[in-house]
């Protein structure tokens, strides 16, 4: 069975929690004890409908303020797919959580309140989903019940959103519009009887039909070595296995490979998954590889196919999304973690800040504050082996770690 991870984004009152609650309720994923708890609390609060937000807002502070302040993960399944929803808060100050949720998702839902239409927040949510190159975006126009299920209003909002789409960088992103009422249950799991003019799929039908191969980005095979396995037992006396996850494409026994950064060439001898050997390792599989020759390989090194070399450089420019309360300034030094490889990085140049609502760039920049997005050039103490983020979502991204606080301070997408 497949696993599909979906990021949700919406503003404070767009009804995101209600939509998720509705998905769980109509797929019968809520257990009796959870339902009871929701009914009990809804009643205590004096609501005459079920308050689904209790399903997602897990932290006390969130329940107090009635808002979502951190990424929450919600799980449900249908007979054909397992779903993970990364529920991320939509307010301006929590861009970092949106980036976090979207980075591991294959699809995203952008919620629009039908009464308000496309607002600044919508631009922002779309911008981030596009920046992170999420392949499937569903624009759910919610609260249709409050605009009399009007097709005209739906078309109006759709046209406004399509205007935005012209400005996006990642043009191949697939966008689907669905008019819904999360509160009443229209077009979430079950088709709406109130909107006969809408002939498309419901939200869940759409997800069920998504082809998994299509939602993952393909690139060239990259094998960053996480860990060297040396059992030193009698049976495996000379065993040196390179443990890691295959990204982008597949690797097979007999493939000629280059070890980076040493540029040593060898051939793949064996591919282990646990105690069995395989001919081929497909992308996203966590395997252990042995090589024909005795080659010096350690954590942070990378195996790639001969002729498929990434860029090897000590300097590059990237789009950075800043996530820390301490600003990124010119000349600052950070630990740059690229996959499992760590180097030191210095901020060489901050070119411009990108306004994440398609309103242009800001060239007068001294530093980056939390939630800023900017184009930045870094110089490294050692070369890394990278692809651009466009070519390779994994090998084209990195995080910046503040050496004083050890916090993950930012994430970058290499250009």
């Amino acid at each position, binding site marked *: *069975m497949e696993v599909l991870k979906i990021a949700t984004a919406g503003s404070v009152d767009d009804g995101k929690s209600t939509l998720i609650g509705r998905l769980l309720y109509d797929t019968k994923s809520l*257990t*009796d*004890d*959870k339902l009871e708890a929701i009914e009990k609390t809804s009643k205590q609060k004096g609501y005459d409908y079920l308050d689904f937000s209790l399903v*997602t807002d*897990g*932290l*006390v502070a969130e*329940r107090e303020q009635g808002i979502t302040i*951190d990424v*929450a*993960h*919600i*799980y449900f399944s249908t007979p054909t797919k*397992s779903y*993970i929803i990364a529920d991320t808060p939509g307010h301006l100050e929590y861009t*970092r*959580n949106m980036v*976090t949720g979207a*980075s*591991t998702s294959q699809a995203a839902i952008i919620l629009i309140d039908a009464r308000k239409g496309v607002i600044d927040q919508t631009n922002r949510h779309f911008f981030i989903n596009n920046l992170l190159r999420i392949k499937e975006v569903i624009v759910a126009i919610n609260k249709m019940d409050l605009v009399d299920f009007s097709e005209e209003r739906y078309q109006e909002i759709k046209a406004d959103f399509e205007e935005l789409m012209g400005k996006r960088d990642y043009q191949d992103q697939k966008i689907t519009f669905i008019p819904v009422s999360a509160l009443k249950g229209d077009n979430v799991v079950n088709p709406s009887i109130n909107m006969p003019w809408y002939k498309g799929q419901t939200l869940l039908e759409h997800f069920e039909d998504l082809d998994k*191969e299509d939602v*993952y980005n393909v690139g060239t095979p990259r094998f960053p070595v*996480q*860990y060297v*396995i040396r*059992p030193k*037992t009698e049976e*495996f006396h000379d065993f040196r296995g390179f*443990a890691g*996850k295959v990204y982008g494409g597949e690797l*097979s*026994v007999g493939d000629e490979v280059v070890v980076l950064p040493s540029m040593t060439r060898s051939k793949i001898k064996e591919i*282990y*998954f*646990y105690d*069995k*050997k*395989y*001919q*081929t390792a*497909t*992308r*996203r*599989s*966590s395997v*252990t590889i042995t090589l024909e020759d005795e080659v010096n390989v350690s*954590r942070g090194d990378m195996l790639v196919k001969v002729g498929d070399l990434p860029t090897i450089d000590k300097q590059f420019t990237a789009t950075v999304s800043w*996530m820390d309360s301490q600003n990124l300034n010119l000349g600052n030094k950070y*630990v740059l*973690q690229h996959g*499992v490889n760590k180097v030191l990085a210095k901020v060489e140049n901050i070119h411009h800040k990108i306004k994440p609502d398609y309103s242009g760039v800001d060239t007068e920049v001294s530093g980056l504050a939390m939630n800023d997005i900017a184009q930045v050039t870094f110089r490294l103490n050692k070369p890394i082996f990278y692809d651009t983020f466009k070519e390779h979502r*994994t090998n084209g*991204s990195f*995080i910046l*770690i503040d050496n004083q606080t*050890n916090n*993950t301070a930012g*994430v970058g997408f290499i250009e």
Partner: protein
Amino acid sequence: MSIIETDLDTVLDVEQSKVLGALRNNDLENEAIYIFREVAAQFERPVLLFSGGKDSITLVRLAQKAFYPAKIPFPLMHIDTGHNFPETIAFRDKLVQELDLELIVRNVQDSIDQGKVVEESGKYASRNILQTTTLLDAIEEFKFDACIGGARRDEEKARAKERIFSVRDDFGQWDEKNQRPEVFDMLNGQIELGQNVRVFPISNWTELDVWSYIQKEAIEIPSIYFAHKRKIFLRDGFIWSAEDDVVFRAEDEVVEERMVRFRTVGDMSCTAAVLSDADTIEKVVGEIRASKISERGARIDDKRSEAAMEKRKQQGYF
């Protein structure tokens, strides 16, 4: 040898040249293995917290897979409340011996005897919360910098917010509002001396995922997970074991014998049973699939208040 292209998640077998079956957990399994390897590479003194429950047993299998043909490169640690099911303890000792692993046991009873914690009393007395002190002391004693646990995000709403690498300060506390963002696959394990990281390799698994995996991998689990005859009594709609004196029982609470099994195996004093005839793994998986009660619905410690788990986690509980 021809390679059959069918699914991106499959790996092909050299001998049989066929696609491996059941792909249900492959993404999740690959993710867990990746996390285990990051732990071994990024930390000096990791430990796997082992309770004898199905989640920690699953962790052991995943760790075996991550490091084969080498042994699991860290010890197991059990915080023993002294109120464990005897079947669990027997199972633990057998597993450790079979896999030739190092096992550390620290006892809540010792913390009580040293006066560090006070035993609860009354109808709902449990040693579940007391475990935290014993755990934090053990982390300090062995200077563990990474503690691997089997918590899952689907279990409970505060756990839904938990990171895969979750940093604890030197008081073992969780600052849930100031968590490190986790983007793509990258895990940041950089910490200061005295801090530690709680690691959750099966964060994204659901209860059904774990059970399906146990079935697929034919992993052995303690017998109390399967239906068996047990002396029980009813209280507040929960079924309690009456076979030992760990669970407080009032005189008017009547004991009867029923077919039951445990869906989660925690401290006996806070783990209720469910009525069940499921005596094989197939039947258990079928039952979980059809169940309408969440797993922690049988954990009385979560019923104390709406925010019971969040409070315990802030204090250093798993």
